[in-house]
């Protein structure tokens, strides 16, 4: 996709404009940066889920029932 839509609120007119080389480059750079941030976020989320599962398994090993473990959440 190489064009964008601009709506002029003072006139209500919508124009279709080609993306500039700079805008295309910015999109590509944004995609790389966002993917890196998303990978970090996903890793944190997964680590939290893993820690929760580990804690629940240890509580179960101590004899707590599933209802008792759920009550701690």
């Amino acid at each position, binding site marked *: 996709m190489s*064009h964008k*839509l601009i709506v*002029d*609120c003072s006139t209500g007119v919508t124009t279709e404009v080609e*993306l500039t080389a700079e805008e295309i480059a910015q999109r590509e750079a944004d*995609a790389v940066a*966002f993917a890196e*941030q998303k990978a970090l976020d996903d890793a*944190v989320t997964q680590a939290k889920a893993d820690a929760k599962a580990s804690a629940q398994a240890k509580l179960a090993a101590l004899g707590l029932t599933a209802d008792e473990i759920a009550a701690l959440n």
Partner: protein
Amino acid sequence: MANTYEAIATVTVGSGGAADITFSSIPATYTDLIVKLSGRSTTSDADMYIAFNSNTSNYSRRVLRGNGSAASSTSGSDRYVGTIDSSGETASTFGNWEIYVPNYAGSNNKSYSIDSVEENNATQAFQYFIAGLWSNTSAITSLKLEFIAAGTFAQYSTATLYGIKNS
């Protein structure tokens, strides 16, 4: 709907699609702004960014996300404003997205809040609640919605900018 709620401009994407949508020359005559978007990406890329006044710096956000069985939260110093339907969702379905920008014409930093949902005839569909801040004191005169990567607004995606007056 309050009688102080006015549609400023609407755009519907045509058959050629669009990489981004910008509302420009936003009048300073309202108190708050709302954009409502019914949107879909033609590709698997459906993560979106926002830009006020074409500025891409000094943004931060906190995201709460749920998919029907689990929830998570993230934060970051970027312009991320959620994800709408991609080519992976049920064909011809469109996600709903709304941003609220209070005091957009004032001289303080600009906060914004977003809620959105994907539409998908499947077990999983995400919903988002996002709190964002643009640390810039300029009055907002333009607002751009764009995909982060190679996303493209599909035909019939529609965005409407509303202005709200407090009296």
